[in-house]
């Protein structure tokens, strides 16, 4: 089975920033993503206990290398300052590269 190299962008952030992330993705014409709620600890303290709005969410995006940089740049610029947020990139391989 031939596999093609693409990137996986993973964003872990407070749940109220999810909408902002999805909007940024949409702006860059990315409509494929996977999300799920998580708990966590970081610079802004323990998150995921207490009020519903204080949970974290992970957003995972399989993305071509070409779009990656722009998306990361916009997330960094608009969200890093105000929101609890961590992001990272990994190398992955997929079967159907035309999907991404």
């Amino acid at each position, binding site marked *: 089975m031939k596999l093609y190299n693409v990137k996986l962008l993973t964003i872990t952030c*407070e749940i*109220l*920033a999810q*909408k*902002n992330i999805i909007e940024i993705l949409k702006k860059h014409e990315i409509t494929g993503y996977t999300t799920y709620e998580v708990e966590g600890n970081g610079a802004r303290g323990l998150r995921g*206990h*207490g*009020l*519903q*709005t*204080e949970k974290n969410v992970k957003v995972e995006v399989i993305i071509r290398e070409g779009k990656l940089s722009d998306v990361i740049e916009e997330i960094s610029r608009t969200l890093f*300052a*105000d*929101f609890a947020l961590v992001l990272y990139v990994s190398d992955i391989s997929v079967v159907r590269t035309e999907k991404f």
Partner: protein
Amino acid sequence: MEILQLIQSNLLTPIILFFLFGIIAARIKSDLKIPEAISEFLPIYLLAAIGLHGGIEMRNTGFENMLIPMFVAIGLSLLFTLNHYQILRRLGKFNIFDSYALASTYGAVGAVTFSVGLSFLKNQGVTSEGYLAAILAILEPVAFIMAIFLTNMAVSKQIRVKKQSFTNDDVSDIDVGLRETKTKLSQVLHESLTGKAIVILLGSIVIGYMIGESGFSSISIVFDQMFTGAIVIFMIEMGIIAGQRLGDIKKVGVFLIAFAVIMPTFNGIIGVLVATGMGLSLGGAVMFGLLLASASFIAAPAVLRHAIPQANPSLYITSALGITFPYNIIVLLPIMFAISTLVHGEGSIDLFNYITK
């Protein structure tokens, strides 16, 4: 003296005791918690019950006489929000974002506080005007929208000032900024009006109005008789969350602590008096006061985090949930009840009944 007795008697109700219990459970670091699905469901349930009840009452009593109290409530809420802002910005020296966020948190209303108030009155055998539920719904977004509008005005102004002092390179950026501001405001407006709290509350009021007592009978066991029990369960979770925040209270500073106690007292008492002046009943005046006294802590983070992301959420959540909420339901509610009893001229008799009971 009588007020102390009222407070003491209020303290010994299951609602307050389970709230305090939740605080203690959090402080001793117990792993007790109400599962998320339950604590997410309970506010929906409580608002549906409040709405149905209010709607049925409105059907019985008409809602012509609701208009004046509603506009007065909106007016007071806007006035109070501006007042909060001045106090926080001038005296408290908070930055513009935190000031507006806090001002609107205290200008907005708390649905959970409202539920506890209804239970308190039920316990006293006192009723209140059904349309207050509708005022609760209408009041919810008012303070937020104003605060967000003013914040965005202020930010735009700052940007415009910058624009004049810097080179033209950023012009497009600024235009984008201004456009974004407008989008944001209309977004917040839409989000507020379609927010689950308002939607379920307004929906239930309308349904309550349509079905009336007779249509309600088949569901009254769930939406009426279980009401206080459900609040009790919710209060355990509220207590736990408030308890977890107690540690943060030091961080909010003495000024905000004082603000979180004095402001609701002021707003609430004015509310009781104004409501009495408008002819609301003893219980109605208490609930009207409570609307103005209460701070929002469930809706606030959801709205403000998007609208004023620069504001520090732990300031407004901690003060509203950790200080004002307990103060309101434990201390201020009985105080307002005593005042309302007094100004309704039934003081001696009612209080006597209450205490001997």
